[in-house]
């Protein structure tokens, strides 16, 4: 049996409220597993316990009860962090460091040095498209560039698991699409990704499986396709279908299949994001 990339078992986290006898239950008896190579979306409204769960998985916060494991190792143990790269929401890295210095700093924290570190820095800057800004201080980076350098630092030790908290928050559509493409490429490389995002359209595009948290409880969990498909309906898309053909199909259905009803006939739409990118791709100059 394959060891799960993330295993959360009966996780509960309770925060005492200072100067009061009350306690806040942020996560309640949560259990889930993320298989290696999966892109898993952890969804939920603000205050649903997503960030707390993420912090416990990263070993930043201890659980009140239950356990979390990363590739079979207790995530509260520091050595399990070798397998994890993390990009927090709205990160502010050391703005006095340049892009290259930032990656070297994080690389050193992971035990890299010498030519290995130099090569890794160059490779990651190229991967996230920041070679041109390698010697610019992060104080002069745009929001999208900061997210991309954040992704690069998360990848510096070549972790098997990436934890991304709102990786496209505040980024323009083009930057957001680039980050989405990067996440897809990580999946193609066999990496596991745990993604927290409020951009459900993007989650739908890239996640294999999702879990929905509400008030600290996992209310739904499963394969994305299983959760969002409407079981009793079927979609057929034609190209260049004439009005006569469509009328004939409708007549056929009405005549021969009384239990079947036509719900809707409409032209498929592209997404607003794709439309925006098509319109702006010729004129936009990136960062």
């Amino acid at each position, binding site marked *: 049996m394959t060891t799960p990339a993330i295993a959360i078992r009966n996780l509960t986290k309770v*925060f005492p409220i200072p100067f009061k006898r009350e306690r806040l239950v942020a996560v309640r008896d949560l259990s889930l597993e993320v298989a290696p190579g999966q892109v898993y979306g952890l969804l939920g409204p603000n205050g649903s316990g997503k960030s707390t769960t993420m*912090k416990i998985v*990263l*070993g*930043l*916060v*201890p659980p009140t009860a239950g356990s979390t494991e990363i590739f079979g190792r207790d995530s509260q143990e*520091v*050595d399990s*962090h*070798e*397998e*994890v*790269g*993390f*990009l*927090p*929401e*709205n*990160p*502010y*890295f*050391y703005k*006095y*460091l340049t892009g290259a*210095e930032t990656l070297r*700093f*994080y690389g*050193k*924290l*992971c*035990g*890299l*040095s010498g030519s*290995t570190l130099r090569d*890794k820095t160059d*490779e990651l800057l*190229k*991967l*996230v*498209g920041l070679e041109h800004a390698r010697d610019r201080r992060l104080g002069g980076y745009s929001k999208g560039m900061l997210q991309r350098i*954040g992704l690069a*630092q*998360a990848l*510096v*030790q*070549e*972790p*098997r698991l990436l*934890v991304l908290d709102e990786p496209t928050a505040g980024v323009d559509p083009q930057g957001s699409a*680039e980050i989405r*493409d*990067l996440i897809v*490429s990580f999946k*193609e*490389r*066999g*990496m596991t990704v745990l993604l927290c995002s409020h951009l459900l359209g993007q989650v739908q595009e890239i996640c294999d499986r999702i879990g929905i948290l509400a008030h600290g409880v996992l209310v739904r969990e499963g394969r994305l396709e299983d959760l969002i498909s409407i079981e009793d309906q079927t979609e057929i898309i034609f190209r260049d279908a004439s009005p006569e053909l469509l009328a004939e199909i409708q007549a056929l259905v009405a005549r021969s299949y009384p239990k079947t009803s036509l719900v809707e006939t409409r032209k498929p739409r592209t997404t607003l994001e794709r439309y925006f990118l098509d319109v702006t791709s010729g004129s936009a100059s*990136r960062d």
Partner: protein
Amino acid sequence: MPAAVESPSATPLARKVKHRFFSPARVWALATNTLTELVRLKVFYFLLIFALLQIGSSLLFVRFTFQGQFQMLKDTSLGAMSIFTSMLAILATANLLPKDVEDRTLYTILAKPVPRFEYLTGKLLGVFLLLLISILVMGAMFAVVLWWRVHVVAGEILSGGEPPDAVNQNLSELYASAYDPALWAGGLIIYTKAALLASLTLFVSTFATSSIFTISVSVAGVFIGQLLGTARDYWQTTGTLAPNSLLDVAFFKPVVLIFPDLQAFNLVEEIIAGAHVAPWLVAKTIGLGVTYVLVYLFAGYFMFAKREI
């Protein structure tokens, strides 16, 4: 953004590099990063004030005898070194941890295989490096100004037209009053005190909720530390502080446990005054400072290890 993404390495780096429980390389990476942060925040600008103070004081006391001139120069310079390094230690350290928490940079660091003890040690070592550079630069400025004043006074003696024996006598007195090897020990004690204050400040920042609170408590620590010895002597002389009395157990002993007795570091004033200070006393004072640094570092780790960030 590049069109193609490169294929993953055959052996991921995470499994090539063996994690170690304590890594001096990681601590050094954190320390040098902290030093870079502080240097690029332009904290060294205060050295300009020190330089102006040096030049001003050397010109102000020019009408004194050369013994008086050099004494005032030493008083001013080492006094300023002590104040500047203490202030720098508190102000530079107070914001390190809160800023990393606020900017979420701490998450990205602790999500890497970095134990919290290494993080704190690295931050503190970075401040120690900053203090070391500061005190070396201030010491060098002091040495240059002192050498310049000695050079000027020696020129006046040589051109004074006195007999050779008197000139030699005056020059001997000049060099003896200017160059005192014990001043190095004074610098070392000033550095140790500043390191102690940095570790106290870092300790406070591990449980403080704001930088203002951290700075306030640390500055209060300096005042309390200075007053502790005087208060103890006074209470013991007047018989108020009997051993194991309520005042001793409920107030004095807890305060002594938390705040450092900084009066021990006033030894530097005796060194400046030219009094003979036994080497063992200097070593004892430095030992006291190192002990406090270690105590505050471990106490800080104890608080930080439990902190939910």
